[in-house]
């Protein structure tokens, strides 16, 4: 019996193995889940005078990463010159910005600035020149829009990233197309128009404003429509359905079989 074998028999050995296993699993998972780093581009051009409140907010919340004059910092954050008010409104109202840390992709969070603050910030960035404005409520009003046509456009140009349901999907290197469950019509419009992060740009001459409204109608109707077949299982598709078939249905049948064939237990009367 080697010293190792002798120690193997100790009661603590079992706990040691479990602990080691947990550590290995945790370290392994952490290693492959990347934090990632932000992409960086952009020239540096300082802006002229603008809404001072927006500038003040910018300096406080954004300049650390995006630079004093929104020119961007290579390897940290892109330039915001020319991105327009719509981009700012999208990023900040979805809580993605201000970002807490560099990441492969900024997740949606509760917004950290109030709507008036967001407006000011957007105005400041817009004053730097160029870029699409925030849409009016009339522009994003999908009432009467053609959701069927929206479905066609969505499946051809959006579903490959966002999934036919808007449930989102994986991209490369830790990026992902987010789920569309919480996006407001305005945010959907702005995202299409400005192409945030990895998303392509769908300007108003490629996908017209009416088509954008059709897409918005499709997204909002789909995510709010009831699931007539029961619980949606996350609308993920055959992966969850297969899990339910094995872990739910088959397990139920096995339990039923166990009951039916269980050994007869003698009752006191026998």
């Amino acid at each position, binding site marked *: 019996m080697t010293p190792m074998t002798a120690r193997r028999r100790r009661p603590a050995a079992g706990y040691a193995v479990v602990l080691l296993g947990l550590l290995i699993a945790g370290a392994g998972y952490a290693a492959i889940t990347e934090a990632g780093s932000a*992409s960086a581009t952009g020239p540096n051009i300082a802006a002229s005078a603008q809404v001072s409140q927006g500038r003040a907010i910018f300096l406080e919340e954004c300049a650390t990463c995006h630079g004093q004059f929104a020119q961007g910092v290579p390897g940290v954050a892109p330039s915001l010159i020319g991105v327009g008010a719509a981009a700012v409104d999208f990023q900040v109202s979805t809580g993605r910005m201000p970002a807490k840390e560099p990441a492969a992709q900024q997740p949606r969070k509760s917004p950290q600035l109030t709507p008036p603050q967001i407006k000011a910030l957007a105005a400041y960035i817009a004053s730097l020149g160029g870029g699409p404005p925030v849409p009016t409520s009339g522009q994003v009003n999908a009432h009467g829009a053609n959701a069927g*046509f929206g479905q*066609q*456009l969505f499946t*051809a*140009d959006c579903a*490959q*990233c966002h999934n036919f349901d808007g449930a989102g*999907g994986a*991209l*490369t*290197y830790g*990026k992902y197309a987010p789920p569309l469950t919480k996006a407001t019509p305005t945010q959907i419009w702005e995202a299409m128009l400005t*192409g945030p*992060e*990895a*998303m*392509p*740009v*769908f*300007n108003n*001459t*490629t*996908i*017209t404003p009416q*088509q954008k409204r059709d897409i918005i109608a499709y997204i909002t109707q789909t995510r709010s*429509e*009831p*699931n*007539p*077949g*029961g619980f949606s299982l996350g609308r993920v598709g055959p992966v969850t359905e297969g899990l339910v078939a094995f872990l739910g249905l088959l397990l139920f049948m096995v339990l*039923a079989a166990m*009951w*039916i064939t*269980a050994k*007869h237990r*003698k*009752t006191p*009367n*026998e």
Partner: protein
Amino acid sequence: MSDSTAGHGPGEHEPGHDLAAGGGETQAAEGAARRRVIGTPSPARSRMLLAETAAGSTAGLPEVREPELPADPQDMDDAKRAERIVAACFVLAMLAGFGFIAAYLIFQVHTVTGTWHSNLALGLTMGLSFGFMGIGATIWVRRVMPHVDQVEMRHPLRSDPEAREAFAETFADGTAASQFVKRPILRRTLIAATVPVAVAPIVLLRDLGPLPGTVLDHTVWRKGMRLLTYGANTPIRPADFSSPGGMITVVPDGFQDDFNALAKAAVIIIKFAPGEVVYTTRSAPADGFTVQNWTVDNIVAYSKICPHVGCPAALYEQTTHHILCPCHQSTFDATRGAKVIFGPATRPLPQLPMTVDAEGFLVAKSDFTEPVGPSFWERGNSS
């Protein structure tokens, strides 16, 4: 351990009899679990036979036979309780069953919410009905029926030598009588006659489809054919598609609803900022990893059909310029001629030669210069 032929049980087996003729021992009944070897001939077969009168016996008394299974459960009280439970289950099952019929009549469909309610009602009543029947039946078997443990002997599966011998003789006699072996000409011509009959069904399948020919080598794109945005079917001016990072699906004019055409001819166009694309130059000849000068204003057109197994390779990451196919994650670098950088695809996405027509709309310069879509045997590396 005995080998396979020693499978005889305690009794003798005669060929041709079923196991009911086997002998065995009846073990003494012990308490609840009585083991009885099946096949023990019961003392008397018929229940209705009048007993032969012996001196002093009463005429007309039927002989009683020993039942093969206990008539009553071992624990009558538990069985009585169980009977009530089972009956309740069956009553619930019946009610649920009627509920199903009622639900069918009451709940209408034709709306998503209506369908939801109808599905809920019908499914629940059906599930409960079957479920209670199952529960009731199970409790019945387990607690109301008497518990038995019986033994049945297996036959050896191998026939005994006499049977085999007899079979062999029959078969030999029949073969001899058929003259099949003795007359080779008959035999061989018979086999020859069946050959076309076996092949004919395969031949009949010929018209399932046309021969592939060179169909897979070309798409419907031709010189001067306009690119239309899918869905709206509107032609595109470069000035309209001017935002760097833009991507859209386009289809050939005249084939926007033709799935057979679109399955090969669907295209995505991507707009790049100046300097992002690596173009083919005279000193860097086209090796598949540069973008050909078939672009307009840094707008590049690639086939949307993945060269792996044909899914639309449609994910475009604006920041990395990668086109990702969602099916099996083949990834293509759009700035370098859709060179494959990960995944199972072995070839880049073909690039569509593009120019503008007289009215300024994007048109194809020609068809793709190589076959589009998944690989196939007759496909060389380039057209």
